[in-house]
């Protein structure tokens, strides 16, 4: 077969084709070419990112499983492990927001339970374009409903996440889903086939033409007849996934399973090739036995379908019957596809006929790797344009500014989103969405498990290295605020087109920043995902390296909330505010500027501040702790007053020489706002003093107004009830909804 003319549609270069021919020592069949195309795609092979990802620290005392399996695993004591990972479903969600987001949740959950862990939490990190951009309110509504639709139905709580809006996502939204499960640490399953002659088994939904590479399907080479052959949107079936989850966990309590992997991207091809390659064996499967939903599917289509809710297993020889029985009990389809072989080849039969025969490792380990060219930004990049206070006039009415910030798209209440998610099912949720980090209790222990996902993409755009380091620091700070010690993270690195040297530069720098912060804070990266090609019409998104971090605490009852709880308590600001308006929400919202360097980050200080906060919480001296991030001190104070179940006012004095707007809205890092009794605050002050961390008493909680003085004059004086109403209704208005009776409490 000469070089096919549809190579480009397959996403392969001529060079890569040459490599395939060298590996096979012949021309590939159409099915084989499709399999290479799927496996060597950026999404499956990480060909542009791998050389950089190797710089991330992945080791640690608690690490049971680092990157390379379906998900990472961390030892949390008491014989238990947590298994977690995050993944993107950006492009499908832009096409069909409900199903795209729903299947994103479904996919990440399968990654968790294939490891033998019972999923207990989901988080979602979302980026949308400007609310007024075309289709945007439809996308927001659809994505949120889709995440809820899947997670709620399968009964796994969505306990946290993020939503932000920026014009760079107008044509390319981001939908990242995180899931976490718990498992006995000696019952972790892996996707490593072994044991020649062991049976290979298919379970779950039938295979249809869902999600097959569109351009390829349209090409003439595979066309025949006039039936509808367009790739179809993947539709999620959370009910079937719930059955699959329960059946798999039931099966994993036996000792029949040798290896198990879900069918994600590149479907049957990736699951079979990866299981074989990891185990250093071969697999022989007959796709004639694959349950199908549609007629006339070609081997190519069956091998590359991305139909959801399917798994591939290798079980011990002779155990077929009890294995089948478990799946039948749960009303699931199960088929014997073939056997493990000793030859290292992935051999695909269609009945009698061999349609593909490829060394399994050629599809995985031998995929190309590229050191793509990088290019630093131009000299006039906004990140290089320093912010000068003389260009920024100080607003007279800072109260109005604070109101506008608190009701702005990026800072207003996420209640509209969060209430569509079941966050309390499974009865582990101690701190629901709304605080700095979600907190779950772990049944059967006293432990608590905290999690948070963070990324300030504006900062990453202005300075990818510093911005990515901040993402790690902020996620850790969020965990520390509730009292948990960070133990590991997963990431989802959303970037533009890797063939643009500027994108690759951003990627390289972001990895450096993350790696540096992870090392300094001693937090390993145990899993992750890269999503490139987030661009429309040549315009790349802001680099958005999402960081989802997990923390543990010994005693879940010793935690802090993020909002004020008690009138009369003292408010203490730990950390130092500097003149750092670069990349701030204030600068963007009030002054329409997106420029300057993000705040500096002293990782040593960051670690110390976090330790002080954690220790304070552990000693029970901290009633509330809130991390300062977007919107700075002003917004954090407002949040402390209005986000709790009861409203609180406060009387405060900034006691700061900085200009008032800087003192209020600078986003300097490593700061935490704490409240507690006078005595408790005294202890914290001495902790700070002895460890060289600046801190300052701002005032007292009480009354119905938030009053903030600066340099002797009252600069902010707001009714907290009014502020809360404005804050809590703003999101519905963004998506074009009015709050009706009964929906507004």
């Amino acid at each position, binding site marked *: 077969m000469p070089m096919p003319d549809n190579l480009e549609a397959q996403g392969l270069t001529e060079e890569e084709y040459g490599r395939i021919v060298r590996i096979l020592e012949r021309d590939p069949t159409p099915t084989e070419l499709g399999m290479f195309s799927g496996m060597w795609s950026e999404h499956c092979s990480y060909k542009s990112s791998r050389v950089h990802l190797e710089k991330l620290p992945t080791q640690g005392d608690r690490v049971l499983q680092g990157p390379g399996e379906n998900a990472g695993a961390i030892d949390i004591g008491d014989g238990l492990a947590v298994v977690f990972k995050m993944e993107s479903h950006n492009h499908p969600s832009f096409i*069909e927001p409900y199903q795209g987001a729903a299947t994103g949740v479904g996919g990440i959950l399968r990654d968790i339970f294939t490891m033998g862990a019972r999923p207990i939490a989901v988080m979602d990190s979302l980026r949308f374009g400007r609310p007024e951009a075309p289709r945007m309110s439809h996308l927001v509504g659809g994505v949120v409903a889709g995440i809820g639709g899947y997670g709620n139905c399968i009964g796994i709580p969505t306990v946290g996440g993020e939503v932000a809006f920026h014009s760079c996502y107008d044509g390319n939204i981001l939908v990242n889903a995180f899931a976490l499960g718990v498992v006995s640490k000696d019952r972790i399953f892996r996707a490593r086939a072994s044991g020649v002659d062991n049976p290979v088994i298919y379970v779950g939904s039938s295979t249809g033409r*869902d999600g097959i590479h569109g351009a390829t399907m349209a090409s003439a080479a595979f066309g025949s007849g006039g039936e509808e052959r367009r790739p179809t*949107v993947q*539709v999620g*079936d959370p*009910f*079937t996934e719930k059955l699959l989850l329960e059946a798999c966990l039931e099966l994993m309590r036996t000792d029949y399973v040798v290896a198990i992997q879900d069918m994600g991207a590149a479907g049957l091809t990736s699951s079979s090739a990866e299981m074989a390659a990891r185990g250093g064996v071969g697999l022989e499967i007959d796709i004639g036995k694959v349950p199908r939903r549609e007629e006339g599917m070609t081997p190519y289509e069956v091998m590359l379908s991305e*139909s959801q809710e399917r798994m591939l297993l290798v079980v011990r020889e002779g155990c077929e019957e009890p294995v089948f029985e478990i799946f039948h009990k749960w*009303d699931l389809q199960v088929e014997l596809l073939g056997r493990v072989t000793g030859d290292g080849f992935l051999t695909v039969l269609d009945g009698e006929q061999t349609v593909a025969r490829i060394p399994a490792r050629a599809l995985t380990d031998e995929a190309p790797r590229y050191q793509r060219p990088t290019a630093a930004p131009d000299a006039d990049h906004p990140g290089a344009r320093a912010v000068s206070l003389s260009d920024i006039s100080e607003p007279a009415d800072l109260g109005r500014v604070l109101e506008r910030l608190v009701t702005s798209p990026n800072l207003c209440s996420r209640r509209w989103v969060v209430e569509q998610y079941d966050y309390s099912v499974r009865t582990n949720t101690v701190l629901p969405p709304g605080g700095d980090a979600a907190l779950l209790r772990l049944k059967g222990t006293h432990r608590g498990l905290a999690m948070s996902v963070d990324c300030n993409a504006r900062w990453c755009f202005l300075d990818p290295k510093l911005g990515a380091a901040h993402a790690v620091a902020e996620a850790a700070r969020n965990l520390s605020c509730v009292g948990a010690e960070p133990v590991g993270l997963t990431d989802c690195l959303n970037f533009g087109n890797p063939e643009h040297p500027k994108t690759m530069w951003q990627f390289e720098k972001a990895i450096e920043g993350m790696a540096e912060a992870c090392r300094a804070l001693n937090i390993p990266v145990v899993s992750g995902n890269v999503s490139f090609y987030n661009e429309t019409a040549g315009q790349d998104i802001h680099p958005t390296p999402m960081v989802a971090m997990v923390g543990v605490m010994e005693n879940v009852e010793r935690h802090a909330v993020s909002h004020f709880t008690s009138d009369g308590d003292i408010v203490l600001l730990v950390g130092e505010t500097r003149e750092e308006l670069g990349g701030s929400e204030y600068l963007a919202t009030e002054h329409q500027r997106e420029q300057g360097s993000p705040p500096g980050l002293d990782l040593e200080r960051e670690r110390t501040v976090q330790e002080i906060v954690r220790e304070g919480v552990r000693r029970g001296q901290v009633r509330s702790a809130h991390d300062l991030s977007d919107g700075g001190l002003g917004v954090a104070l407002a949040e402390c007053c209005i986000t709790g179940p009861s409203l609180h006012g406060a009387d405060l004095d900034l006691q700061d020489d900085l200009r008032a707007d800087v003192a209020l809205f600078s986003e300097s890092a490593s700061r935490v706002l704490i409240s507690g009794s006078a005595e408790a605050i005294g202890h914290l002050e001495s902790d700070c003093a002895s460890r060289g961390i600046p801190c300052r008493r701002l005032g007292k909680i009480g009354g119905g107004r938030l009053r903030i003085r600066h340099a002797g004059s009252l600069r902010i004086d707001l009714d907290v009830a009014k502020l809360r109403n404005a804050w809590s209704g703003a999101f519905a208005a963004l998506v074009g909804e009015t709050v009706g009776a009964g929906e507004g409490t």
Partner: protein
Amino acid sequence: MKAEVFVTLKSGVLDPQGKVIARSLRALGFEEVRDVHQGKYMVIDLEGVAPEEARKRLDEMCQKLLANTVIENYRVRVEGAEEGNS
């Protein structure tokens, strides 16, 4: 004037609801059921438009709101107008 809109999944799109309904019908003893496709049915009251005009307007409504044309087909029937498909 009364109009009817029928929305169904495109062929090839997974229909989890239809699957469950078919299975439970069979479990209830209706073994003759081979397959079920679940769709939506809307009855729309219109006023002040002529049938042929209404037909066009309904088509627009389906495109814009009533059907998700990425995964669904629709069919419209207006009293006194010819039937039309997506």
